[in-house]
């Protein structure tokens, strides 16, 4: 009896191994204030001491659009399915930019914050979660740019028309963010030990962009032998669906999106499990 009352006194028990199925959600909730402070910090420090400040958010996609129009639209002559090129490329840049930012920042979280993680404990997951949130600022600016371009072309009578599925846009963003986050978590958990993986991953991310309908519509692959493989890409349905919602041209397929969502859920569970296992001792191996 006495034994038992003594057992209950302890509030923190530090053991070598954690339970296998541990997501650390309770801890995350306890540190929710740190999350919001981190988000604000990320945003306020983003462009401190730069010449053009937040203007970079505009310059970057505008230059990309011009480049894509020259190389992919001009030289390679890849069709945009009748959608005006700037509208088409901007939608791809916006979604891909957000996905890749979420992925890269999560993929680097352990190695990149080893300094602070080596000194104090808080749920490490706070940092990638805060980063994917603050990345939304950039995506918001991209969205404004997209709306501007869009209105310009509608005004000039381009054959594009939005439909109700456009309202699903926030959902697409959340799915892309969580996909990027969970893949990033898996990668960061592996790169603490095997560092060469990081180079491989940046390289793979670049290639992965070409397997996603960013600079081409899925329709040009229809009937081709590689078209089937492109459909396995779990983030593609959301690129296509967004374009469909905004312009009426594209693929909007519930079952295809369901496939994407299932991949996202599985990766998220896997990513959080792996990450929670590694975060405890990674500081010894980083």
């Amino acid at each position, binding site marked *: 009896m006495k034994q038992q009352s003594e057992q209950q006194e302890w509030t923190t028990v*530090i053991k070598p191994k954690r339970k296998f199925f541990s997501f650390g959600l309770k801890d995350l909730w306890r540190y929710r*204030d*740190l999350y919001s402070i981190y988000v604000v910090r990320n945003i306020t*420090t983003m462009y401190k001491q730069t010449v053009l400040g937040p203007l970079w958010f505009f310059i970057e996609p505008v230059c990309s659009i011009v480049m894509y129009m020259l190389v992919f639209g001009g030289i390679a002559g890849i069709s945009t399915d009748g959608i005006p090129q700037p509208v088409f490329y901007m939608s791809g840049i916006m979604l891909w930019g957000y996905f890749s930012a979420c992925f890269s920042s999560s993929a680097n979280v352990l190695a990149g914050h080893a300094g602070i993680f080596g000194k*104090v404990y808080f749920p490490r997951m706070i940092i990638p979660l805060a980063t994917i949130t603050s990345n939304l600022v950039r995506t918001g600016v991209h969205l404004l740019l997209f709306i501007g371009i869009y209105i310009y072309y509608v005004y000039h009578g381009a054959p594009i028309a939005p439909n109700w599925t456009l309202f699903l846009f926030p959902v697409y963003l959340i799915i892309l963010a969580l996909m990027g986050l969970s893949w990033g978590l898996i990668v960061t958990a592996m790169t603490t*030990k095997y560092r060469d993986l990081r180079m491989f991953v940046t390289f793979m991310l670049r290639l992965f962009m070409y397997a996603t309908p960013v600079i081409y519509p899925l329709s040009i692959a229809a009937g081709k032998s590689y078209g089937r493989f492109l459909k396995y890409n779990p983030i593609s349905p959301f690129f296509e669906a967004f374009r469909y919602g905004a312009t009426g041209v594209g693929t909007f397929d519930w079952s295809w999106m369901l496939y994407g969502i299932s991949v996202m859920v599985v990766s998220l569970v896997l990513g959080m499990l792996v990450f929670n296992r590694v975060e405890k*001792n990674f*500081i*010894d*191996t980083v």
Partner: protein
Amino acid sequence: MTKAISFQNVSKLYNLGLVGTGTFTNDVYRWFKTAVLRQEDPYMKVGETNDRSTSGNSQFVWALKDITFDVEEGDVVGIIGKNGAGKSTLLKLLSRVTGPTTGVIKAKGRIASLLEVGTGFHPELTGRENIYMNGAILGMTKAEIRSKLDEIIDFSGCERYIDTPVKRYSSGMMVRLGFAVAAHLEPEILVVDEVLAVGDAEFQKKAIGKMKDVSKGDGRTVLFVSHNMTSIRALCKHGVILKNGMVDVVGDVDSVVSQYLRGDSSSDNYKRWETPAIMKNGFELLEIGMRKKGGDYESVIRMDQDMELLIRYRLTKAIDPFWITMHMKNERGEKIFSFGGGGRCYDKKHEAGEYLQTCTIPANFLNWGNYVVDFMAFTQDHHIECLADEQDIISFTVANRQVAIGGYMGKEPGDVTPTFDFVEEKLK
């Protein structure tokens, strides 16, 4: 008394050398042994004790091995040990920066660590913004920080700069701000590592006072790691000596500190050879040691007491001229000065026989800290001939003088603290 923290057979295994060389293979092997064959982990056995100076055979080392002790609620415990004894690893485990390999640590209440103050400060943010950032990292909620904001700013003494980005701060101000945040967290258990080494005297006084309040007034538990025996003695009730990753002594702070200082110096401050090992051309070194004047080699050498260096040697034939030169080095290995008998010994006739040289170093000359001596002996025929050249022949520790609580606990800069003859006169 109830227990606040309980360490039960806590061990931590570290992989030496390049982590990742062959790790994947090792991982597979370990997994195969433990998961498939259900045998003992092959790497858990080969770990050696943690002794930095001797090289071991295995790639794995126990940074901590079977640490078992309890800390009572409201106690302030000092953790003492040489560099690499496992102090910081112990605190890291407690603050959950890394996990133990085996064993369990149980604790009651919130643990906050001050492993390094100012963690997470962002240079572009202002002092105020960083207080929120730092506080949240240490586990405070926004509301808690807001309610203590004025107190924190006041304690730090940085009101004037509070809305300036911290990159414009001096390093001292940064530490003040960091410590101010940490001191106002109200955890049940506070883990502190060497914060008092920085900051000026006034701030140290403040910090020590705050730590005393924390443990006395509110009955909170503090674990304190420091190399500064004076502040350990002033702050702590109990002490734990770690040696090579194991608990060496646990007890009342005064006895633990003096045992540590003794143990630390007796190992190397005296050497004696039955069969001479340092010998050349008729010179044989028999004994060399540093001790408190008139004391034995076991007692603590304090900076406010005279100390003496004794050298006993034998000449198997007449050697003339003959002289000894030594170099005094500080713990960073920098030479502070060269010393020797000079003319008084040099001019003497050195016939065959046994000799004893005694050198007295006056009190309040060497600052407290660790020192190392290089030993050389020479003769001259047509050119100078070296009879002995022994680097790091002995090392010794000079302890701080007794300081009243609240006095300056830090170390004055420099290796010597001479007391010059100062005269002050009132002119008008």
